[in-house]
């Protein structure tokens, strides 16, 4: 049994927002793979839950007229990994989605929950950062759109107001068009594990040079981060092993890795350097096989 006092299961978003504005104590539950485990561990007691599962259409994945890809917050990772829209346009997100937990977890866990629980190890977070994704947050008083880079406030903390619900994750065409990329999840096991480090790279190349490079890391700081020093270094440079290795070294600068039982600070910094290089190289190869010397 879970320590649940009450559970609301509204059938519309309007009803959900109404309930949330009336009772700010309501804890939003999506797939349940984080919230219910917190309860098992005693970290959440006498919970009043607001389940979004009965709201139809909240898991839709579509391309809007302006080319923006919209992913419903309730889309489960299995659905994201199977989606042709995601596979064709956001292959790095599909790669990240498949790396989450195991198959049963991916059938339950949602991308919205993964972002809103604020975990630095969230497999989707680094990739959404690299694609310059935006989050659509809805409340009774209106909606706002926040870049995912401004959403994380600290370990386990996000800038979601008590009366707000994350409804959609938006990736504008400028964020994904003509890009290639790669996600590397580094963990002790291939499945059912939490990342020791997550590296997501999205880049564009032109005439043998990097015209755009976006590098994001999970578990390298208190929140998922972008590596601005490394990106600035790589943009405009010739595509070579030397450039990419140096970019890996620059990526360490943005990090604030720490010692934990999963890995030491020194080991994490080594991983950042090596895995950023590998992800970048793989992204270039996937982007059309520029001859790398």
């Amino acid at each position, binding site marked *: 049994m879970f320590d649940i006092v009450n*559970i609301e299961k509204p059938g519309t978003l309007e009803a959900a927002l109404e309930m949330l504005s009336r009772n700010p104590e309501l804890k939003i539950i999506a797939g*349940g793979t984080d919230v219910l485990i917190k309860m098992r561990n005693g970290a959440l007691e006498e919970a009043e839950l607001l*389940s979004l599962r009965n709201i139809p259409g909240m898991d839709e994945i579509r391309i809007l007229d302006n080319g923006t890809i919209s992913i419903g917050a309730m889309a489960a990772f299995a659905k994201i990994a199977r989606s042709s829209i995601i596979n064709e346009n956001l292959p790095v997100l599909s790669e990240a989605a498949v790396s989450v*937990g195991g198959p*049963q977890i991916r*059938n339950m866990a949602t991308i919205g929950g993964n972002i809103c629980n604020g975990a630095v190890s969230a497999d989707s977070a680094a990739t959404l950062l690299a694609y310059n994704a935006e989050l659509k947050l809805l409340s009774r008083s209106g909606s706002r759109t926040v870049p995912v880079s401004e959403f994380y406030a600290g370990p386990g903390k996000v800038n979601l107001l008590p009366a707000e619900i994350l409804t959609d994750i938006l990736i504008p065409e400028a964020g994904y068009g003509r890009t290639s990329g790669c996600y590397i999840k580094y963990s002790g096991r291939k499945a059912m594990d939490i990342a020791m480090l997550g590296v997501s790279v999205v880049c564009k190349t032109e005439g043998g040079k990097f015209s755009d490079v976006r590098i994001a890391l999970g578990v390298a700081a208190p929140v998922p981060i972008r590596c601005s020093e490394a990106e600035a270094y790589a943009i405009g440079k010739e595509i070579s092993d030397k450039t990419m290795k140096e970019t890996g070294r620059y990526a360490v600068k943005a990090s604030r890795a720490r010692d934990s039982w999963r890995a030491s600070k020194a080991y994490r910094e080594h991983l950042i350097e090596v895995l950023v290089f590998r992800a970048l190289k793989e992204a270039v190869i996937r982007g059309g096989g520029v001859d790398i010397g």
Partner: protein
Amino acid sequence: MDKYEKISMVVNGKAYSLEVDIRESLLEVLRNRLHLTGVKQGCSVGECGACTVLIDGFPVNSCIYLAVWADGRKITTIEGVSKEGELSKVQQAFVDEGAVQCGFCTPGLVLTATALTESGRKYSDEEIKREISGHLCRCTGYNKIFNAVKRALDVDC
């Protein structure tokens, strides 16, 4: 202050309408109320896969799935896999490959493999390994289990 809600669900082809405690997991309702004890309770936090059931055809960890969410859903447990006393193809493959030792992980694995066979898709070795990776077996290695799933999917071993 106990709170109950009425749910309707189809379990192994049979319709049920029952009052469930809002605090209950689907696992607890299946085991304690419907006495479907083939659904095993292992880790209780969605890591071991012993409690796996199919919900509308997809494998889900029933230990972290609220019973109230099952309203209107179709559930398959290991008890619903064989038909008229005949083992299913997946069950037979597990027997033929000797893929059962203590048996605790077996119901979940058979259900995941059943979902794979019913998808009608073809799976590479790597994909099979990925698809069964949400089940932990603590008796032995995974080779016989892997071979059984392959056999059930008609892949030459």
